[in-house]
């Protein structure tokens, strides 16, 4: 299975026979302790879990053979209430920001922090607040619901995987890294936990203003809403279109630079 995921991702070009035997042993080992995963859906659009499910090639075996989904409303029909306590989880993916006025969301998030070994801010709403940052309340169905914040504002978060949504590939790569205990790969996502106030204007403040921009265009390419263009070799952000997902700054080669991983991936 792991071999299949790696093949799908183009990871590790090992000789096939050798690879398969090693992988079988490895997967057999994993079988003993399948990670228990929970999926918690707060104020998000379900786009993040849809992106997860876009890993068609590996999804079914991933969900059935490699992990146990022990909690969630979409991936597993498990709800938590006073009679049914939330199960213990090795890893909880939290989609969506948390609304400070929504007692149920707040309670669920705090309970998840108690029950999960690792809490992942999954998608930009959970990681940076994303477009829920624009909420000012006064709407139906609950006009009191006004203040939506990244979950790291309320609980300790271990990993952040921003993206509106995170790409299917980064989700698969992260799953592989978690299963392999590949902390080096996960390090940038641990660092991103602190990046909760994202905005297209970060390109100006943290790259152009800091004499770091080289006009490569990666930011403009990665913007999911086409809010970023390039004018005279510099990013120009249309703030009316920006959803504050943080992807432009995160993909910028001048924000952080994973040199060792890149060389490893290229075989250099």
């Amino acid at each position, binding site marked *: 299975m792991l071999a299949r995921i790696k093949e799908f991702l*183009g990871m590790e*070009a090992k000789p096939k026979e050798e690879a398969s035997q090693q992988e079988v042993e490895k997967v057999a080992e994993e079988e003993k302790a399948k990670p228990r995963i929970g999926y918690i859906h707060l104020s998000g659009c379900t786009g993040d879990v849809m*992106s997860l499910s*876009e890993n068609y090639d590996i999804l079914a075996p991933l969900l059935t053979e490699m992990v146990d989904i022990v909690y969630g409303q979409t991936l597993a029909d498990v709800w938590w209430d006073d009679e049914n306590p939330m199960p213990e989880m090795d890893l909880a993916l939290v989609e969506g920001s948390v609304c400070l006025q929504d007692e149920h969301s707040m309670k669920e998030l705090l309970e998840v922090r108690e029950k999960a070994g690792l809490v992942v801010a999954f998608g*930009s709403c959970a990681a940076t607040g994303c477009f829920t940052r624009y909420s000012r309340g006064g709407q139906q169905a609950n006009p009191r619901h006004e203040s939506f914040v990244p979950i790291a504002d309320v609980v300790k978060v271990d990993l952040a*995987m*921003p*993206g*509106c*949504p*995170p*790409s*299917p*590939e*980064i989700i698969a*790569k992260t799953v592989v890294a978690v299963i392999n205990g590949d902390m080096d790969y996960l390090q*940038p996502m641990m660092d991103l936990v602190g990046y909760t106030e994202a905005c297209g204007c970060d390109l100006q403040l*943290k790259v152009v203003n*800091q*004499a*770091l*921009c*080289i*006009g*490569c*265009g*990666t930011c*403009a*390419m*990665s913007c*999911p809403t086409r809010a970023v263009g*390039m004018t*005279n*070799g510099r990013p120009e952000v249309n703030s009316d279109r920006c959803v504050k*997902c*943080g*992807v432009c700054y*995160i*993909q*910028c*080669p*001048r*924000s*952080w*630079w*994973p*040199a*060792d*991983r*890149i*060389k490893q*991936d*290229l*075989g*250099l």
Partner: protein
Amino acid sequence: MVLGTYKQIVHARSTDKQIQKISQDGGIATGLLCFALDEKIIDGAVVAGPSDEMWKPEPTVALSSDEILAAAGTKYTLSPNMWMVKEAVRQYGLEKAGIVTIPCQTMGLRKLQSYPIGVRFVAGKIALDIGIFCTENFPFESLKTFISAKAGVDFSLVEKMDIGKGKFWVHTADDVISFPIKETHGYEQSGCKVCLDLVSELSDISTGSIGAPDGWSSVLTRTEPGETIFSQAVDAGLIETKPMDEGKFGLEMLTKLAKSKKEKAMKEIDQRKELGLPVPYKASSEKEDPLANV
């Protein structure tokens, strides 16, 4: 290793007379892309194509050899080629895209491939990256200013620009004017000052004029796919090669310039760190090889 990891280093040029005529040096980027397109190794490429304004390139998706030829030749200003990558995959439907990048763009591309955090189904569709040597890059207005000030030439009359033998060369229809490359200092964009990469260390194939005789390019093949495509083009007779000149104007020159770019950048990086300014690279004290691109 100041030239990065590579499989082979040679001098090479395109054997196609038309490409030789319009290309900057050996026509390696143009020749290889045309070959890869013909052989269906790629189904299109992101290149610095022409725009409405003379000498101002525009990232363009080329789908034919003609469109690749139209982008031949170096433009000494910014062309945000990474910007067009998603467009190439989504709007043009490329499954195996080629791209020409300068080192900083290569770094954007490789980071995207290792960490495709917010970009869905794009990173895996880049089949070939040809990296161009780069000492520094100029904003368009900088280029216009120093061409008119230093060369005393009307920008609209320029037919070719070139950097070589320590000079910046400006060709017009009936004249060739040059001035020392040192005189362009102060016109480059400041982001280049922390760049540790002259030879596009992370490309599939890197190429540029430094260290090569006139009309030839220096070529380094780096990755498996890069080596394969280059060898195929050589076997097909579309690229000819000769052994790298190891001497003063060959490998020695390339190594010297790559090293001096790194040393200058490391000084800048260390200085920035001391001031507490952000920079994505490690200080020289934090890494084993102080000149590594990390």
